[in-house]
């Protein structure tokens, strides 16, 4: 019965494990002779008083001579709100089935700050070849991640074809923070280390004067503690045939993920040099999840320096092999998850951004995005519960300076 107490007391950052933040790509398209500074403030808000995150980002790129450029990025996420912890019956989770399924939420007094810094360098070997290295660290009160990645690009065929490859490594530690008489302490024996390797191969091809396409293949392998230390799953006939148990979210100790991304960009000179961006990504992993992502962005220059960018996205995934909202019987492999991110669902999102160039060196932009996740929007199948449906909105303001 200790499980229920933990659920109630888990005042913390189930949100920590679902934080939006920055994972910058330390890649530059061409030797930049200008110093560039980017800053962004975004507010992320979920429906029904769930999570709220304020995100502060800044990025600086400085060219060093003809052959090098260095980049530094910083992110701060301030998280408040509540997050789902389990699916159960009745308000306590332990209620009779007749009470109906309910979503057990963490307490609403979450407060967590995540800081991330990374530094990268790009080396322009010659007009055709670029090498990049990036190192960083992210930390918050229940999670740290140390990472580095290297990448290389080579332009062939009179710069009409670009081959890119990259490798990334991350070493993470995850644990659970609980409220102990008003003080936040680490739960002993919960959590662990996680190691991730990622490799990517990509090719970009100029199709004609007005269009280009890109194909990227990514493979990711993770080992270690891959579960969510704040989440539980309700399992019947686990320790006894009379009452169910809340079992900790337990996922396999390794995960293989594949992603294939196809991107297409096309210019429409008759429409004031507007550009269409269309992406399709297929994803598949060893947890049994397949997902499809379709994205469309339209960049419309209005008058000199002013651009409007509407975008639309559709996402669908099926559920993980070890996912159920509630388990009627224990699983032989001991894996359990009722995490809404492991369920089958679909999501539709869209947004619009307005950018304006002023004084030749400064660019100001503002935008908003809306996202709606629903179990019945999915085309990929799988199982889930409509209790996990939610929406979010994200408001963003950014400034870019080049000199």
């Amino acid at each position: 019965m200790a499980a229920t107490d933990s659920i109630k007391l888990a005042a913390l950052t189930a949100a920590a494990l679902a934080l939006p933040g920055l994972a910058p790509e330390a890649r530059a398209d061409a030797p930049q002779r200008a110093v560039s500074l980017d800053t962004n403030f975004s507010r992320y808000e979920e429906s029904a008083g769930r999570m709220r995150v304020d995100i502060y980002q800044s990025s600086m790129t400085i060219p060093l001579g003809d052959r090098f450029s260095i980049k530094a990025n910083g992110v701060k996420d301030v998280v408040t709100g509540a997050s789902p912890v389990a699916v159960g019956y009745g308000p306590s989770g332990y209620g009779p089935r007749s009470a109906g399924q309910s979503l057990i939420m963490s307490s609403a007094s979450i407060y967590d700050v995540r800081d991330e810094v990374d530094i990268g360098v790009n080396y322009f070997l010659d007009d055709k070849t670029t090498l990049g290295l990036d190192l960083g660290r992210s930390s918050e009160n229940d999670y740290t991640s140390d990472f580095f990645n290297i990448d290389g690009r080579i332009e062939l065929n009179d710069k009409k074809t670009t081959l890119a490859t990259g490798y990334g490594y991350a070493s993470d530690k995850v644990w659970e923070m609980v409220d102990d008489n008003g003080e936040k302490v680490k739960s002993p024996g919960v959590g662990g280390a996680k190691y991730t390797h990622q490799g990517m191969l990509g090719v970009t091809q100029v199709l004609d004067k007005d269009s280009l396409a890109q194909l990227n293949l990514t493979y990711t392998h993770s080992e270690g503690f891959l579960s969510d230390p704040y989440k539980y799953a309700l399992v019947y006939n686990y320790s006894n045939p009379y009452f169910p148990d809340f079992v900790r979210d337990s996922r396999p100790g390794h995960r293989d993920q594949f992603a294939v991304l196809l991107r297409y960009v096309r210019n429409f000179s008759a429409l004031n040099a507007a550009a269409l961006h269309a992406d399709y990504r297929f994803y598949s992993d060893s947890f049994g999840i397949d997902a499809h992502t379709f994205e469309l962005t339209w960049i419309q220059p209005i008058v000199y320096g002013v651009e409007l960018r509407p975008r639309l996205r559709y996402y669908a995934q099926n559920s993980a092999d070890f996912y159920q909202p509630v388990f009627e019987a224990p699983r032989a492999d001991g894996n359990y998850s009722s995490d809404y991110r492991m369920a089958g669902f679909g999501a539709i999102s869209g947004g619009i951004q307005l950018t304006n160039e002023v004084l030749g060196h400064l660019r100001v932009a503002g935008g908003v995005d809306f996202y709606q996740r629903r179990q019945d929007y999915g085309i990929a199948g799988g199982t889930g519960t409509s209790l996990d449906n939610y929406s979010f909105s994200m408001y963003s303001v950014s400034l870019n300076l080049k000199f």
Partner: protein
Amino acid sequence: MKTIIKLLMALLALSFAANASEQAPSCKLKTLDGKRSLDLADSQGKIRYVDFWASWCGPCAASFPFMNALHGELASQGVEIVAVNLDDNREDALAFLEKNPVQFAIVEDKEAQCPGLYKVKAMPSSYLIDRHGQIRHVHLGFHDVDKTELRAQVQALLDEK
């Protein structure tokens, strides 16, 4: 058959990528202000520095101040700089020149007749032509390190008789 010929021509073009030690191809263009007409090959005994550029080419912004300095120093000694604009829109070229004002000659080639003849392989591309109309050096792209080399090459061509 047509594809084979195209392929062979492409290979031929590639083999002549550098294009040095060749007679500069004749190509007549009008200056941006429309006032006069120039033939790229007709150097009239001077040293010609022909630069193919466009407003959208990043390194071009760096090369213009350098070429302007060269013009200031060496025009009186017989070095003529001719920059060939390859923009589709005149306005883009004019906007670029407002940000990067220069004293040397700017000609426009909207239909891109000349870059094909000169087998331009990169943007920008500079061709150093001697007093006898022979292409002696070809530079693909523009970097800070090219400045000293270009200066030395122009000086060497000037010193020739």
